[in-house]
């Protein structure tokens, strides 16, 4: 190591460039090799004893015996004096003060001298040390760091400052001199000049200090943008784009690009045939979109969306990942953007990407774009039609959790538009498997999707039953406890699965066999909220279609609870009706109307009442007066189910008597005239059963009345010859067919208590409702032996008609044609 000695002869002001030969004059250093310079500077070190001793306050080198000057500034490199170590007082040390000969002291000094520079270098420039060279430590006391140690950190900081200065010294010059020059050159007429200038700027932008200089010059950036826009030379474009790209890694850079109109220029570059230009442009735009406020709007306005969608046809996966991420940022929460993506053919391209690539990041970003599009009612059908459901389902077994979750959310959003899809077997099977996942989000999504996909779709229902969906769903409900996010869609799915398809009966039994009944009855109790209760009531109604379920349901206490819910809901509607001015009480609690609860509970009791014991329980719970009251309801559906349950109850003599005692005859006779055929039919049936014991002339009068009212549209046709309208095959032995309680109509795409369609990013609640079709199946037969007198003019409701199912099954739903496609929409104007 070289030694360094302060000017000892020159007592003048200390200057770094004076005198000492060993000191490097850095101002002449060439531009490169900053690192070398620093190295050399580091090497010009101090040596010798600084006269600093542990335990004592640092003394100015005046201690030294040498005559050299000293500083008051405690800079390590200036305190360099060689001196002999003197024998000082070391008040904190415990060394014996005597017993050291001068020789020994000299030896110790020698050692310390030799290692001192090493130690100091280790403290200040640890990166220059050779590996593995041990340096003996001079620390005598663990609590007391040596002076070198104490000075280590401040010296480091100082070192960094000086290094920076060395670097920036030149770049600051550059900034002040070169940038304005280059700006002028970029604005030059001559394209060659512009090209050269652009190249230089690009080079400069690669180094940090000069990059900052560029960023801080709005004129320079504006000139770059202009050059990029106007040039026809590819190199110029590339250099300018590259520069902007480098700038875009800093907040200040993003801001200046934004302010100089960089965004429209960059968007223009998205049409470039040159790959590097394209990559620079998209990456820069990506950075802007991520971090610069106002960029989104600017990119949209510059037509960025269309261009990005067109770029989805490229095949570089990293590029695609950035592009799709840009699309996601732009489209999120912005309806117009989503429509533009749709118009540019986005859905098809995105689905194709999901199908074709395996790079996880790309799949993830693409799934996020699809998720954003999937809440838009115009995009949804397009995504589904492009095969989006299947493409997303391909990745449901992927090990990347974020990918699986995004795919699930997207599929869930799409699921209400996908009920007409084919080849859903794979998806449905996968979903049933996912119900056993440990991740609650996954389970919730899977349940929601299954619920939607099984709604009104026979094929899907059959498939789910065949892949053991019932068992999986029951298990899910058992494990979910009171997590209604999971239980509600799962119950809805079971409700769909237990009616109106060939395997429905099997499904109804399967719920029982997998121990589903107790937990379902439990869910009728608190803390369940109304949406869940409504779903469970509907499911119980379906389950009651299976005779084997009657007894278990009764034993688990379903009947009293259902009646209780009915009473509560009914009281609520009465209360609202009395409060509201127009006499109609219609209010939502938790998104559910109490009329719906009334209808649902009575409907469930209707089916449960097929069994004699159940009838007895219902009578015991004082249900009949309530049902009679409900006959007066203005809601046709409620009238129908009330008449239906009374019809069942009237099968027993006690029941019939009670019904008559409650004064049901009058309202029932009214209802004979109802335009709703179901209502009228049930009303007729109840009256018949009630009239069992009446005298003959009563029966005759009744018969006339019934004939007249039921056939008011078809007066000329005698009853007995012709099948009454709306009645199918009554009088035959009908197999106990599935009661066509239509699956609840669902409202895409929002979470609605009726259909439980779940959708990200949308509000809950939906204004209007598609009314449940009044043509519901009528099940007039009941089991357990009922005796009627055969009235010859009437359809045979006698003992031969076992569970005669008046089936309005095959009526097509009257869903409004909701084609999300623009072409389907009418054209109308609005007055303002």
């Amino acid at each position: 190591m070289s030694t360094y000695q302060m000017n000892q002869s020159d007592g003048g002001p200390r200057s770094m460039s004076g005198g000492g030969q060993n000191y490097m004059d850095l101002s002449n250093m060439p531009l490169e090799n900053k690192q070398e310079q620093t190295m050399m500077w580091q090497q010009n070190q101090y040596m010798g004893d600084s006269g600093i001793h542990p335990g004592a306050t640092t003394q100015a080198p005046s201690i030294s015996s040498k005559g050299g000057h000293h500083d008051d500034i405690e800079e390590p490199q200036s305190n360099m004096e060689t001196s002999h170590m003197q024998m000082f007082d070391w008040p904190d040390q415990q060394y014996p003060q005597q017993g050291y000969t001068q020789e020994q002291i000299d030896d110790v000094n020698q050692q310390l001298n030799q290692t001192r520079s090493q130690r100091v270098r280790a403290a200040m420039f640890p990166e220059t040390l050779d590996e593995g060279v041990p340096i003996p430590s001079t620390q005598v006391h663990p609590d007391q760091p040596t002076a070198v140690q104490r000075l280590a950190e401040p010296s480091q900081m100082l070192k960094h400052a000086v290094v920076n200065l060395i670097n920036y010294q030149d770049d600051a010059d550059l900034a002040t001199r070169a940038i304005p020059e280059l700006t002028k050159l970029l604005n030059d007429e001559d394209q060659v000049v512009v090209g050269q200038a652009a190249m230089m700027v690009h080079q400069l932008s690669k180094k940090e200090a000069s990059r900052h200089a560029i960023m801080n010059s709005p004129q320079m950036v504006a000139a770059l943008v202009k050059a990029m826009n106007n040039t026809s030379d590819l190199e110029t474009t590339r250099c300018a784009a590259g520069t902007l790209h480098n700038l875009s890694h800093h907040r200040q850079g993003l801001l200046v690009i934004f302010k100089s109109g960089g965004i429209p220029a960059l968007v223009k570059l998205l049409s470039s045939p040159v790959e590097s230009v394209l990559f620079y442009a998209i990456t820069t735009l990506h950075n802007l979109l991520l971090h610069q406020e106002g960029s989104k709007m600017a990119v949209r306005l510059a037509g960025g969306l269309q261009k990005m969608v067109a770029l989805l046809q490229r095949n570089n996966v990293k590029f695609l990942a950035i592009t799709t991420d840009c699309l996601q940022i732009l489209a999120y929460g912005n309806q117009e953007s989503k429509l533009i993506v749709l118009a540019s053919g986005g859905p098809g391209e995105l689905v194709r990407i999901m199908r074709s690539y395996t790079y996880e990041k790309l799949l993830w970003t693409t799934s996020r774009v699809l998720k954003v599009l999937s809440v838009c009612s115009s995009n949804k059908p397009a995504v589904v039609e492009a095969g989006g459901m299947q493409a997303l389902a391909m990745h449901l077994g992927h090990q990347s959790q974020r990918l699986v979750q995004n795919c699930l959310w997207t599929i869930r959003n799409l699921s209400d538009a996908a009920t007409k899809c084919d080849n859903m077997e794979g998806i449905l099977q996968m979903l049933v498997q996912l119900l056993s996942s440990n991740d609650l989000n996954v389970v919730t999504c899977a349940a929601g999707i299954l619920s939607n996909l099984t709604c009104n779709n026979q094929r899907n229902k059959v498939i789910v039953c065949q892949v053991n969906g019932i068992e999986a769903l029951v298990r899910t409900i058992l494990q979910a406890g009171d997590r209604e996010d999971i239980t509600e869609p799962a119950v809805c799915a079971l409700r769909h699965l237990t009616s109106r398809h060939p395997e429905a009966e099997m499904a109804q039994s399967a719920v029982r066999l997998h121990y589903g009944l107790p937990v379902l009855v439990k869910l009728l109790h608190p803390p369940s909220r109304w949406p869940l209760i409504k779903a469970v009531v509907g499911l119980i109604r379906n389950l009651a279609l299976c005779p084997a379920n009657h007894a278990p349901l009764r034993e688990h206490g379903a009947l009293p609870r259902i009646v209780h819910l009915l009473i509560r809901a009914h009281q609520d509607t009465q209360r609202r009706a009395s409060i509201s001015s127009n006499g109609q009480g219609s209010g939502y609690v938790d998104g559910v109307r109490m009329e719906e609860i009334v209808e649902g509970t009575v409907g469930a009791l209707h089916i449960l009442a097929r069994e004699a014991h159940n009838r007895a329980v219902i009578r015991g719970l004082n249900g009949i007066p309530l049902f009679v009251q409900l006959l007066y309801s203005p809601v046709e559906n409620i009238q129908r189910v009330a008449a239906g349950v009374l019809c069942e109850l009237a099968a027993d003599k006690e029941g019939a008597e009670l019904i008559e005692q409650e004064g049901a005859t009058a309202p029932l006779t009214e209802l004979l005239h109802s335009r709703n055929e179901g209502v009228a039919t049930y009303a007729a049936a109840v009256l018949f059963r009630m009239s069992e014991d009446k005298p003959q002339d009563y029966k005759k009068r009744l018969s006339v009345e019934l004939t007249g009212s039921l056939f008011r549209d078809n007066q000329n046709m005698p009853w007995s010859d012709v099948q009454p309208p709306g009645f199918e095959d009554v009088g035959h032995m009908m197999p106990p067919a599935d009661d066509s309680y239509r699956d609840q109509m669902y409202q895409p795409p929002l979470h609605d208590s009726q259909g439980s369609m779940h959708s990200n990013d949308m509000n809950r609640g939906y204004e209007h409702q598609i009314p449940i079709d009044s043509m519901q199946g009528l099940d007039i037969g009941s089991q357990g032996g009922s005796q009627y007198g055969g009235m010859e003019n009437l359809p045979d409701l006698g003992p031969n008609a076992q569970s005669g199912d008046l089936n309005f099954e095959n009526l097509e739903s009257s869903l409004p044609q909701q084609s999300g496609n623009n072409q389907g929409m009418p054209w109308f104007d609005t007055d303002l």
Partner: protein
Amino acid sequence: MTGHTAGDPLECYSIPLVLEKEPEVDGMGNPVSGPDGKQKYKCGFRIGGGIDQDNTKSPQGYPDKGVYVTYIHEGGPAERCGLQIHDKILQVNGHDFTVVTHRKAVEYIQRKPTLNMLVYRKGVPAIAKSEPQPQFQSYSQDNYAMQYQPNARLS
């Protein structure tokens, strides 16, 4: 400008109009409030169109999915400010109406009591194609500082 595809950049001359809405009054001259308790205003015109509508079904035969004025009430604020039937609305209070759904268009119009609009009317000459100018857009790009000038760059 026959048939501008929504979402494409657009550059054309436009007519700036300022419409001051009129408070709505009932037959006796009392102000009418909406369900939220706030005063209702009348603009005095009807609009049709939007990107979610099918313009081929429009009785007026509009060429594209922009928002058009389909009727002007006589003596109303729209007539007074110079709006004419079949005007294509390009911008209202800074919102771009060339790419907007019908519902959104209605919403933007109903928001404020004063409408600063830019409309395109048939007969207005097209911009002569010149050298592309350096794009010095206003510093806050969301905010159209150029609203009141006839040369509107919308994209």
